[in-house]
């Protein structure tokens, strides 16, 4: 029946929203609440201004003045790291789509029930998407509480925070689908974990280095880094970059289609 795997995945995995979303929410709360007065931000501003421009670029933006504002502070200290942490969850969740159940032999039982292979993958990915949205929402709540407890963020718009959160969704989904696809193709959990983690780490550092170095070749390679389309400072400063969101979402859909085709065609559990 349509939706059975989706609801079962939500039933068994919803606690992840509390663990990961709660953890990220606490991180957001701390990042915002730690700034108690404008004097602290001025000190932060001085540190930022003293940074060489390439290092500033590596942190995601070149506007030192903006980065010394409350929004700029959050864009670096929370949004700069949050996608990386959500990506860790996305790798774990990606392994849960096919690899773990196949490795345990449970997939044999599940596939003997009246459900298509593609349906299992799609329903689990959709359930994980809902879980990730739940985590982002809980993180947002934590961040919002932090922002409201500090007078420094009085003028900060809630919409800006929402946009910052929404901006993390495509990148997280991309890692989720990429891990699923790799695990479907390579069939070995450890190898899939290693490859997905390597891509996340490489994307993060590639993006930082490419921004700092500004070399054309590196910028070309950086097109394959999902952090390249994250632009967290830009999003907090000017709003969502729709074209970036679309690129990452389309890439996610393409990877999902590859995963579905590979899973549909291959033997199970060998």
């Amino acid at each position, binding site marked *: 029946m349509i939706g059975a795997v989706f609801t079962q995945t939500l039933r068994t995995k919803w606690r992840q929203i509390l663990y990961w979303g709660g953890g990220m929410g606490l991180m957001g709360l701390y990042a915002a609440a730690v700034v108690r007065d404008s004097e602290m931000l001025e000190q932060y501003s001085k540190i930022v201004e003293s940074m060489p421009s390439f290092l500033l670029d590596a942190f995601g933006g070149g506007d030192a003045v903006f980065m010394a504002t409350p929004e700029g502070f959050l864009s670096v200290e929370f949004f700069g790291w949050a996608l990386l942490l959500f990506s860790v969850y996305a790798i774990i969740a990606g392994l849960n789509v096919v690899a773990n159940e196949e490795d345990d032999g449970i997939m*044999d039982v599940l596939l003997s029930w009246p459900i298509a292979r593609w*349906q299992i993958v799609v329903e689990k990915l959709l359930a994980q998407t809902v879980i990730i949205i739940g985590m982002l929402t809980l993180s947002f709540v934590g961040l919002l509480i932090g922002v409201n407890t500090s007078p420094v963020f009085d003028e900060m718009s809630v919409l800006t925070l929402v946009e910052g959160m929404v901006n993390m969704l495509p990148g997280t989904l991309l890692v989720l689908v990429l891990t699923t696809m790799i695990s479907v193709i390579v069939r070995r959990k450890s190898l899939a974990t290693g490859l997905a983690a390597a891509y996340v780490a490489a994307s993060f550092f590639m993006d930082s280095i490419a921004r700092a170095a500004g070399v054309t070749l590196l910028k070309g390679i950086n097109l394959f880094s999902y952090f390249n389309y994250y632009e967290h400072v830009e999003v907090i400063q000017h709003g969502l970059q729709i074209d970036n969101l679309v690129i990452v979402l389309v890439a996610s859909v393409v990877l999902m289609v590859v995963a579905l085709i590979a899973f549909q065609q291959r033997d199970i559990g060998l």
Partner: protein
Amino acid sequence: MESFVIQTENLSKVYQSRKQSVCALDKLNLTVQRGEVFGYLGPNGAGKTTTIRILLDLIRPTEGRALLFGENANKSSPALRQRIGFLPGELSLWKNLTGLQVIQYAGRVRGHLDMAYVNQLSERLKFDPSKKVRDYSSGNKRKLGLVLAFMHKPELVILDEPTSGLDPLIQQTFNDFLRHYSAEGNTVFMSSHVLSEVQAVCDRVGILRDGRLKAVERVETLTHADFRWVTVRFRDAVPPELLARVPGISQVTPLEHGYRFRMVGEWQALLHAIRDCYVLDIQTEKPSLEEIFLAYYNDVGDSEMAEAAEVKEGEA
């Protein structure tokens, strides 16, 4: 209406790895009819599980095809699987769920759950579904697997070593259940090592070896094989050579006042050989299916060796 519930046509499977390729199944042609209980026998690595996995579309054949209810098994049709129940040889389930939660999950995927029937099955198998899967013994996990395989009253049940780990009493209950189940027109395809179980419930058996189907026979045919064990008791001492010379007699074992031996064919030659002896008693025993099974393998093995020897002689 489909002519066969299961039909395979030249079904072959070769497992490829970097170092070697292994032929697990070689041109298997097999048919199972509606209402049959078909036993699938063979030693480990013979290809039994490979056949079952192809039937369930968990793996794809290298060559040939498998049809279930006349439909190609590799279409992965959910409608087809609605008609099938399956118990794998090594059952793995979600450890954090209770037996009941797993049953309910299966019911949701199938779109229907008859709890009254599930309770009836559980009672019959003496299974408590309230515990978590991780807390079940291997026997209880097997019972849960059987409930999952039968809970939707499938027309075809595919069972890989169904009673391994079950206590003898439950095995007996399960065998009774299987007989009633097939009597209602349902089909059972089961692999087994337990030959007494096959003897008790199966209508026909297929014997698989090295990926090849060596024989398909009715169980009665096999159990009416033309060899038997004979025990003859004599009043006086009789030299073993007297029996060993008789055609059709082999494996002569001396007893206190006689001999036990394997005999093939008619009695006349034996009776003629012992005509001058004072016979106290003659007893005969039918061979067990296991003995027939082993004898069958030995015969095949012997003939293959003979063929190989002939080839070598020819080459020389």
